[in-house]
């Protein structure tokens, strides 16, 4: 079941370079920092303060009730690593932990890019997402299973 609220963290920077953060809880309909109401709130505080708001994040908790956890690669150290190429012809790795066995070819290592679920995922990445520098992805080159510890 989804929580009733989403935590929002707003970071501030003063002229001396010191930082602080403010944590608020909002209703769970508020899912993005660019939500109009969040923008208004930040703008109103901007008129009340002597520092700058540098970033804002909102965490949205997923509904895990129906999440499957019975695959061969259910450990988060097992990852499907996708290689995307951007508009500058640079490659970028994006990892998905605990991949389902069904997305691999018979060798159990190579991701089947023609798999419907995989194709949906890779097309979504290319349609909406980009590199950290804002460069769009133009293609997915490959996907393969790797072992990698901890966070990305």
């Amino acid at each position, binding site marked *: 079941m989804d929580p*009733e*609220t989403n935590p929002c963290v707003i970071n501030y*920077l*003063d*002229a001396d370079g*010191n*930082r*602080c953060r403010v944590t*608020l*809880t*909002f209703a769970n309909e508020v899912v*993005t*920092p*660019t939500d109009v109401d*969040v923008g208004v*709130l*930040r*703008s*109103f*505080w*901007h*008129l*009340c*303060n*002597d*520092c*700058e*708001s540098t*970033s*804002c*994040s909102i*965490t*949205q*908790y*997923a509904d*895990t009730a129906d*999440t499957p*956890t019975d695959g061969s690669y*259910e*450990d*988060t*150290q097992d990852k499907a690593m996708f290689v995307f190429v951007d508009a500058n012809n640079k490659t970028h790795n*994006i*990892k*998905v*932990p*605990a991949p*389902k066995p069904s997305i691999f070819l018979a060798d159990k290592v190579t991701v089947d890019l023609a798999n419907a*679920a995989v194709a*949906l*995922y890779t097309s*979504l*990445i290319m349609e909406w*997402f980009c590199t*950290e*520098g*804002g460069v769009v992805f133009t293609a997915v080159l490959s996907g393969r299973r790797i072992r990698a510890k*901890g*966070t*990305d």
Partner: protein
Amino acid sequence: MPAEVLASRVRVDFVDANGGKAQQDYYLPGEMTDIASEALAELHLTIMDITDAAQVKQTLTLTSYDIDGVNSEGPYNTVSDKLTITAMDGSGQLHTVAMPAPREDLFLPDRETVDPDSEAWGNFKDQLFAMWKGTNGEAMTYIRAVRTQGGPKGA
């Protein structure tokens, strides 16, 4: 000048059945728009179709914000200076939020109590209490707001 927003980060945290954790960052181009929530929902669903890990949360971070520059005037211009706002949730529990570097003209002559007639404060307060919720999603009731001091990392 505010920094140009090249991309906005979406951080997805995962946990497996044994408590193992992993994390992957995705980026949306530029400053996010309303498309962000749709993109997030779609991302969540498509990842669910190819992973066995439970996705416990998705954190969407706007990496910078295009507002009109840094304010630096005033006697309380550090993030250690706070306006601490106290509120009560539906079950009677008190909550505080400490907003950094409040402007001098928000306060009464005692320099501690917020001037209830300040238009800037009134606008912020109205917006804050329209949005701020208790952990169960209930509305918060304003109690007081006073100037305090805390560490630079406090909130």
